[in-house]
């Protein structure tokens, strides 16, 4: 049984008559200790999926799923109290902007100790030492002084390390990282990714890494899920999925990378924009932007079909099959 099982997750906002569909029938599963990367443009529904797992979608957002289970517990029917016990202890999350994700009025020590206090308990006197140890584990420079610092006294990279420390404090089984490096300098990005990977391996934690940056995902993940407009369009194992993509969208994402455009005048881009609230196609969601679209794509929405080993694709005419 997988650690995280999601089947047919739907998240909608706005009025029921004219909903904004953020997540549309997403299936996702993560095993213990597995590293899965989720890629896609802004608006693809990757962050909303992670927030739905954590239960942080507030009304008027509506979360529906055939199955949403973490370690066998049904997250759709969980009591608020049980959910609060789970968050931070069994599943933890770090966010995109570390400078604003920490409370400016409390010290690092206070915020770390808080997590320990509610989930781990134990003696108050030991908690400060535990917090210090956590800072060491996230490679925080000069941890003794940083403990009593306020967030505005730390750099972005350091703040993100604090976030990671808070997240791993209780040894969660699943860590969700939503664009953890997007707001950081490139050099710090590499350090943080190495840190996440090292922690993941040491603790046998499952890691769900969300990013729009294919390079970031390629460095860390074992398996990749590609999302578009709220749907999963392709899944597969690295490195194969990037070497031989099966979905036109994945191929286009790869083609837009600077590395793949050496010698060109302009980057290859995907024309058009992600469908908004009112122009969601009835057929394949990508067809207005896909060069290979034919009438079947316009009329019929493709289903996610299993391919060979452990990969899936949602396309009538995948790249490794017959031409349209």
């Amino acid at each position, binding site marked *: 049984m997988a650690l995280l099982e999601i089947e047919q997750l739907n998240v909608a906002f706005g009025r029921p008559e004219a909903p904004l569909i953020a997540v549309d029938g997403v299936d996702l599963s993560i095993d213990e200790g597995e590293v899965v990367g989720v890629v896609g443009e802004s608006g693809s529904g990757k962050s909303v999926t992670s927030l739905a797992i*954590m239960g*942080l979608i507030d009304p008027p957002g509506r979360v529906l799923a055939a199955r949403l289970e973490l370690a066998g517990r049904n997250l759709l029917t969980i009591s608020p109290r049980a*959910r*609060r*016990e*789970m*968050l*931070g*202890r069994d599943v*933890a*999350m770090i*966010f995109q*902007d570390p400078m*604003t*994700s*920490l*409370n*400016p*009025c*409390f010290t690092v020590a206070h915020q770390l100790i*808080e*997590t320990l206090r*509610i*989930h781990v308990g134990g003696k108050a006197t030991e908690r400060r030492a535990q917090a210090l140890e956590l800072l060491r584990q996230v490679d925080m420079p000069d941890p003794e002084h940083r403990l009593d610092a*306020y967030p*505005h*006294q730390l750099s972005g990279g350091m703040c993100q390390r604090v*976030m990671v420390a*808070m997240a791993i404090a209780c040894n969660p089984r699943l860590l969700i990282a939503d664009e953890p490096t997007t707001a950081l300098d490139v050099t710090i990005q590499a350090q943080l990714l190495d840190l996440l990977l090292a922690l993941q391996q040491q603790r046998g934690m499952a890691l769900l890494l969300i990013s729009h940056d294919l390079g970031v995902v390629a460095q860390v993940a074992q398996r990749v899920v590609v999302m578009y407009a709220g749907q999963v369009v392709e899944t597969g194992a690295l490195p194969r999925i990037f070497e031989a993509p099966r979905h036109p969208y994945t191929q286009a994402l790869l083609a837009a990378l600077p590395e793949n455009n050496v010698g060109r005048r302009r980057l290859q881009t995907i024309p058009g924009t992600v469908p908004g609230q009112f122009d969601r196609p009835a057929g394949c969601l990508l067809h207005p932007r896909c060069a290979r679209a034919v009438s079947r794509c316009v009329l019929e929405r493709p289903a996610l079909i299993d391919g060979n080993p452990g990969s899936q694709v949602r396309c009538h005419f995948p790249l490794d099959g017959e031409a349209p």
Partner: protein
Amino acid sequence: MLSYVLKRIGMVIPTFLGITLLAFSLIHLIPGNAAEALSGERGMSPERYRELAHQLGLDRPLSTQYFDYLGHLLHGDFGRSISTHESVLKEFLTLFPATMELALCAIVLALLLGLPAGILAAVKRNSFLDYSVMGVSLTGYSMPIFWWALLLIQLFSVQLGWTPVSGRIAIAYDFPTPTGFMLIDAWRSGQAGAFESALSHLILPAIALGTIPLAVIARMTRSAMLEVLREDYVRTARAKGLSWFSVVCVHALRNALIPVITVIGLQVGTLLTGAILTETIFSWPGIGKWLVEAIHRRDYPVVQGGILISACIVIAVNLAVDLLYGVVNPRIRHSR
């Protein structure tokens, strides 16, 4: 932090000097001067008038008179009341505890009711509770305070007979008042029923005076909380599995309080204004009533002194709030 403190204190000094200039000009702009006031109805001969004017120093150039006045102020001499011949400062200090007790009670009430109301309105935004809190607040600061006081008296004192109409304590009680705070002195006197009497006299004026601060605090807390609840660190707090109480009342409120504290400090002016009207209605023997009576009696030294001291209090409280703000906001606390 140090530069912040020094800068704030530095800005106070010119304001203070300006207030003294204003108070000084007040007397000289009022038609008639002290000599004329002393002359009374009968009038006096021109020689006597000149003599008196010379005695009072009124024939010297204005700038000399101003510096003289300033000198007196710095020695604590704010002049003498025309009617009672007492030192203005002494009368002020005698009557101030009554106003202070009333104002403190009012602000405590305003906080006890306003903070939770604002928090709840923000958390349950656009609900019936939210609209009620906002509606009641709006009505609260749209009412003339003296009329609200009259209504309260009409309901609670006249119709229900629960509270007395005027004064600080029933006449029957007589005990020493070392602190000037009737509640404390009544408690310490040990006399049966004294504390209850003091409390029942205090409650209605405190409600009347505290209504506007209550409305302002509720509104301000609500809008500050609404902003803070949208912040990323609140999402982090929820992602850590913290309880609703912890998220709202520890993480969010701590940040929302920063602008609210400033607003509370600004209420000092409102409280003094309200005290003038409330004390008049409830015959509460504080500085508000003292000032109003002085105006009607044309006791200008009292008016001048009262205005000056009140302004100093407002400046002092605003300074204290500024400094408190520097302490409470970590970003300022840690700047050089």
